[in-house]
């Protein structure tokens, strides 16, 4: 169990490093989805929008949309930090609730790069970083510039 947890943590860390290297200011979003069996799929050119407390990730082909509801938002310096508590995956015309276990969402709404809390890494301006685990053990990590923000 510990080995599984450790390997998942290593995979998550590797994903974070990869995301940090690949996502640049102005770039569109990148999303990694790691199934509980370890397989990882990468999605580039993901459109990321924030409306109220709902973060929406739309795949490049436009056929998949993942909506994540966040709340309990607080600030760590200039980084807004929220907790995801509900998610819905829409594929074509079908929509499914995705049960979440836990996660964190970081927003940088400022015009300068900000340090992530308890990390040496930074978050580019107007960028979101999402890390979550579903109830079925799927890890979703996403990072990219917010294409649209609505209050």
């Amino acid at each position, binding site marked *: 169990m510990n080995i599984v947890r450790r390997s998942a943590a290593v995979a998550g860390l590797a994903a974070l490093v990869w995301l940090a290297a690949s996502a640049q200011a102005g770039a569109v979003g990148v999303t990694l989805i790691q199934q509980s069996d370890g397989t990882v799929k990468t999605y580039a050119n993901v459109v990321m929008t924030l409306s109220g407390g709902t973060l929406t990730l739309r795949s490049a082909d436009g056929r998949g949309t993942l909506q994540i509801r966040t*709340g309990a*938002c607080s600030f760590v310096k200039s980084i807004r930090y929220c907790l995801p508590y509900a998610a819905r995956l829409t594929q074509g015309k079908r929509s499914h609730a995705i049960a979440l276990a*836990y996660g964190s969402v970081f927003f940088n709404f400022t015009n300068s790069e900000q340090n992530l809390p308890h990390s040496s890494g930074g978050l580019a301006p107007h960028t979101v970083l999402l890390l979550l685990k579903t109830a079925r053990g799927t890890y979703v990590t996403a990072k990219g510039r917010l294409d649209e923000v609505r209050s």
Partner: protein
Amino acid sequence: MSLQLLMVLLAAVAPAPAYHSAPAYHPAPVYHPAPVYHPAPVYHPAPGGFSMPHDINARPPQIRPAPVRVAPGYHVAPQQQRTLAYPPHAPYRSGPYSGWHGRVIPNRYGRRNWGWNHGIIWYPVPYYWGGGFWGPWVAGVSGVALFGSIIDYNDQMIFPSYQTGPSSPGAQLLYDYGLTQTDCGPPNLVVIWGPNNSVICAYPNDMVAPGNYEVDPATLTLQSLSAQ
């Protein structure tokens, strides 16, 4: 004779032959190889949007009492399972208490409504212990450090306590009052009841005496249970 003399004179006044310096050797030009441009990786997105086959129709996580050992007849206090898009307004029911009439201990930083949160209202979310006030912990998920518990013998209810997460609103509260969290259970501690039946304990100090307190999320202030 005169012609010879003339030639000698001409030779004397003629300019010295020009000595050409040795040809300068210009080093061969250094050819810098053309930079190698690594093309950006091309990502081929999987067709059909996002693939999450294992998560379709999955049930929401059940908040388990583990790692709290529940004595027979006792049960763990329930946590919020639905969305509340508003904050708890003090005084609110938390733990076994509902009436909070005691003294309000002002926050030493004089925090006004939501001033601690850049003026944005904080509200609790489901699944997370204390609605996320004390950190991003989901009650019952392994890996979260249990910090003792409070037992309500009248209602046979157990209120587990967990370690406060760094950078959480709860951590800010503890900092503002100069409190240090400790395991719940021993007597004469500061017992702070937060949103959604959450509770933490801390050592008393000059500002906060032992007893039960409720936290007002809007101002990060503590109010004691009774005037005693």
